């Protein structure tokens, strides 16, 4: 078999589509779509960082008093739900505060591919900013993270860098976002 293909082989990828496990109030999976109902997450009852949401893979992470996200420990991503929308709505107002969270090393219950420890609040703050503002890693941080392993969208080396240089990452992200305003 010829080893090198210079185009997209659709067939090859037919079974590699991202499988995001979403959960509804009744914990039933509905065709891979987000069906979070209003009362599916009772924030008052789950106000601890990283508390497991029922028997599924969604964990609620409170980054700071008034900023929380739902994290999916199977798709390793922030869920695009009402919580996320509420953060997006206030992001520009709270941008500086969220950027400062990158230095927070509180351990969460969130897990990610390409790293064998739980994510810290600072990691999640970075990922939250990235999800909202689409940070170009190389442009912002100056490192060529160009290798993705096993369908993991977080490149090899990214989390180690964030962990080792939190203050620097914080400053660079802030500089980048201000420069884009």
């Amino acid at each position, binding site marked *: *078999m*010829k*080893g*090198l*293909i*210079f*185009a*997209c*082989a*659709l067939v*090859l*990828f037919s079974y*590699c*589509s*991202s499988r995001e496990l979403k959960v509804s109030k009744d914990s039933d999976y509905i065709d891979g779509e987000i069906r979070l109902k209003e009362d599916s997450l009772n924030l008052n009852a789950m106000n601890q960082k990283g508390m497991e949401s029922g028997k599924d893979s969604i964990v609620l992470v409170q980054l700071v008093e008034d900023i929380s996200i739902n994290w999916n420990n199977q798709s390793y991503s922030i869920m695009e739900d009402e919580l996320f929308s509420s953060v997006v709505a206030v992001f520009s107002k709270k941008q500086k505060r969220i950027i400062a969270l990158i230095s927070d090393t509180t351990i969460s219950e969130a897990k990610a591919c390409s790293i064998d420890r739980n994510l810290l609040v600072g990691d999640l703050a970075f990922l939250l900013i990235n999800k909202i503002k*689409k940070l*170009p*890693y*190389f*442009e912002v941080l*100056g*490192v*060529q*993270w*160009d*290798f*993705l*392993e*096993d*369908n993991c*969208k977080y*490149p*090899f*080396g990214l989390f*180690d*860098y964030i962990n080792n240089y939190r203050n620097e990452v914080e400053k660079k992200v802030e500089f980048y976002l201000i420069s884009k305003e």
Partner: protein
Amino acid sequence: MNTDTLLIKVSDEEDLRNLFSLDSNGVTMQSIGKEAFTSAVANLSAEQQQLAYGYYGAINSSDVHTVEMVNRSESLSANGVRLTGYTTGAGVDGGAGGGVNGSFGSGSYTIVVMNSTASIPDYRSGDGYTSRNSSAGELLAHELLGHGVGRTKGMSTYRHEDAIQMTNLYLRAQGITNVYRDGRSHGSRVVLSKSTATSIPSFVQIPITLQMNIRRKGPIELKPYIMHQDNTRVDPSYLGRP
């Protein structure tokens, strides 16, 4: 700069180019025969031969390596988006520094930005560093051969060293010997010594059995041979006669 390694004669270039052709489906590369390879690379420099062997190995491999070449202004294919999360060439350029490789099954998926403007800052030049944009060829060697093939060959160094070494092999194959990348701004950011950074990954080194079949083409200038026993001088015109 050493012009011996910089220039490939037009005829040699054609030989090398003819080595790579698409299959009838217009998508996959045709397998390359051993004799065709040894003949095509005969007059190339050692670095050019090693680089060509890297592609020879990738093309003849049973692993499937997919490559998507894009300009910054172009959108990625659906598969490229799905695998990398980027949507455009500019996204790959600003996010990953010109190219990206992801493992897929037993092979890999590479995206190369052909007009990358990402200025990579870890090229050693003398005692300092200099920044350079990567050409498409440099990125392809780095991503596909270094990361992609390195992983499928079971190397333990495919995440960082192999890719940096392929970049540096590419540069030397192009006759660029005054700079090399040390990896300070790549992946794990482990800084490689010059000797490690400029080594050639084992899976790209031409096996001795194949090397023996690579013979330079064209007229070879023979020098007089002095016999050790009695210092008899043998004229070139007599050398090689039965």
